[in-house]
């Protein structure tokens, strides 16, 4: 039998029961639609998170004090008997692949400018921060390249702090008080927006040593290392490990490469997308049962026709193929409609709630359509086999 004729016969059968086929396909459509919509949401979230994480660049390695154990509590949060020092950070600059090193101390303090006061996040940071974290200076300049231990009392304001403290007035050159110390404003930053809930605009940047003194700390909270494009993260990490162990005597710090973090994050988000898609898949399962039922009914109703086809000389496999084909056609039509539903839904959602990241990828769409066809195939197997196994004499005799 020609493929073309085969298709025509199955489509003819599907079309001859319009209402029934419509409802069966609708079931699959709702299932596929929800799978597509939900995976679009998952994928959107995935991309959103990756974008958030990579806006600092990807060639980063972070070093935190303390060995992170099963507690999952980062050493940065709590006190530590073995601090990471500014000198540790300086030492890492000797690694050839390392482009820049930034030491970080974070805290919270009241900032006063004239009569205005604001309690905000203070970052003690190195001059290389704009390059490493991909920050843009809006006016003035970033912290100058002073000796780390003898940095001058300069401060750079995040865009929001600048606006809150100085409004439309001039900030450059003004003196501000942070905690009990006085600083001179030498620059302000472009808005960077929120990063996973941390507002980088509501921030004041000061030299690391000044921050350590202000917060009465010994240890840095983090050292961030920017390495050359194309170098292996693992190799740089192992050199960092070697240098720090030589300085500390043991591995009392934790190294996190951005690469590994993104990998883990990607894995988690993929699982999430799959899980959410799986929830939508329940509907698809029910839709599959729908096809199974309708095909069972069809085989029952068309027993006579099956007997006739056998008498006219069709093989068992042809009968099997015809009914399987019918199930697949039903499911595929439903699948296509479901794609429209899902993509439309995702678009509508993106339109109504712009904050919600959605992304529909062609691979997912293709996979969803294949899934629909597979559901049809699976649901069709049982009825089609029954049809093929019918005894022609009995089939012809049935009412």
């Amino acid at each position, binding site marked *: 039998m020609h493929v073309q004729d085969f298709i025509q*016969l199955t489509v003819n059968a599907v079309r001859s029961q319009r209402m029934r086929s419509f409802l069966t396909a609708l079931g699959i459509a709702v299932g596929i639609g929800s799978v597509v919509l939900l995976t679009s949401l998952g994928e959107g979230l995935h991309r959103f998170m990756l974008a958030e994480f990579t806006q600092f660049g990807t060639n980063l390695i972070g070093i935190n004090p303390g060995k992170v154990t099963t507690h999952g509590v980062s050493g940065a949060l709590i006190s530590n008997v073995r601090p990471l020092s500014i000198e540790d950070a300086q030492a890492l600059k000797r690694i050839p692949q390392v482009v820049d090193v930034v030491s970080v101390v974070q805290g919270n303090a009241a900032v006063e400018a004239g009569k205005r006061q604001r309690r905000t996040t203070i970052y003690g940071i190195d001059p290389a921060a704009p390059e490493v974290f991909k920050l843009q200076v809006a006016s003035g300049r970033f912290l100058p390249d002073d000796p780390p231990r003898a940095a001058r009392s300069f401060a750079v304001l995040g865009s929001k702090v600048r606006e809150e403290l100085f409004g439309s007035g001039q900030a450059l050159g003004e003196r501000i008080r942070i905690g009990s110390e006085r600083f001179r404003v030498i620059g302000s930053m472009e808005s960077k927006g929120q990063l996973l809930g941390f507002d980088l605009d509501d921030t004041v940047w000061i030299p690391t040593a000044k921050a350590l003194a202000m917060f009465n700390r010994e240890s840095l909270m983090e050292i961030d290392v920017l390495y050359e494009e194309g170098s292996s993260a693992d190799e740089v990490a192992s050199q960092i490990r070697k240098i720090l162990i030589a300085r500390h005597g043991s591995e009392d710090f934790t190294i996190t490469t951005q690469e590994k973090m993104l990998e883990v994050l990607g894995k988690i988000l993929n699982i999430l997308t799959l899980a959410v898609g799986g929830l939508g898949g329940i509907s698809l399962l029910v839709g599959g049962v729908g096809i199974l039922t309708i095909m069972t009914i069809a085989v029952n109703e068309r027993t006579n026709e099956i007997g006739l*086809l*056998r008498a006219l*000389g069709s093989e068992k*496999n042809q009968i099997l193929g015809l009914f399987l084909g019918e199930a697949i056609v039903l499911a595929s039509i439903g699948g296509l409609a479901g794609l429209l539903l899902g993509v439309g839904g995702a678009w509508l959602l993106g339109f109504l709630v712009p904050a919600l990241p959605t992304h529909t990828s062609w691979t997912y769409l293709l996979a969803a359509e294949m899934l629909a066809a597979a559901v049809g195939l699976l649901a069709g197997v049982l009825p089609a086999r029954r049809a093929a196994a019918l005894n022609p004499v009995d089939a*012809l005799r049935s009412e």
Partner: protein
Amino acid sequence: MIRLQQIQRVFQVGEEEVHALRNVDFSADKGEYIAIMGPSGSGKSTLLNIIGLLDRPDGGTYELDSIMTTTLNDREQAHVRRHKIGFVFQFFHLVPRLTAEQNVELPLVLAGVDKDERHLRVRETLGAFGIGDRARHRPDQLSGGQRQRVAIARATIMKPSVILADEPTGNLDRASGNDVVHILEELNRQAITLIMVTHDPELGERAKRRIKMVDGGIEEDTGS
């Protein structure tokens, strides 16, 4: 060209074994016109089904055009059925959602014949049976006689060597019935073997050879 030897067919009905055919020997030559007659349950339909390869005997051998059909698998049997045998049923068995044309075309589609050739042959056959103007009608738009003509057209489109008709007039009024019988006899005159099951004695009388079956065996055969 048809040779059945020691054919047996046993059905299991509940606990009981029913012998539908008991060691039947039967043969027919090319172009014969045979009527199989007998009371209900005498095994005449079973015999026809076995000749048509719709049913497998439980014992014995069946040779058709010097092919030993009893050893063929499903595929090969389907092939023989497709090319050598045409069926005409009491209830026509037309696919209700297909047009007359498409119904007649069905065996050609199953055999994988090309579209152009198919259309030519279908048109020709429908014309020959006088239903060319009904080609695009569905079965429910046709009269009983027209339906049976479509069915006969379908049975002959593959140019089979045998036509098996099971009560072909049983569901028709007298006029249409006669009509159908004439068509079948005309086909028989073109050297197609015609085997017809009927319990209409008048119809049976028309056949050149009559077989009377009783209780799963051939009681009387005017030909042998």
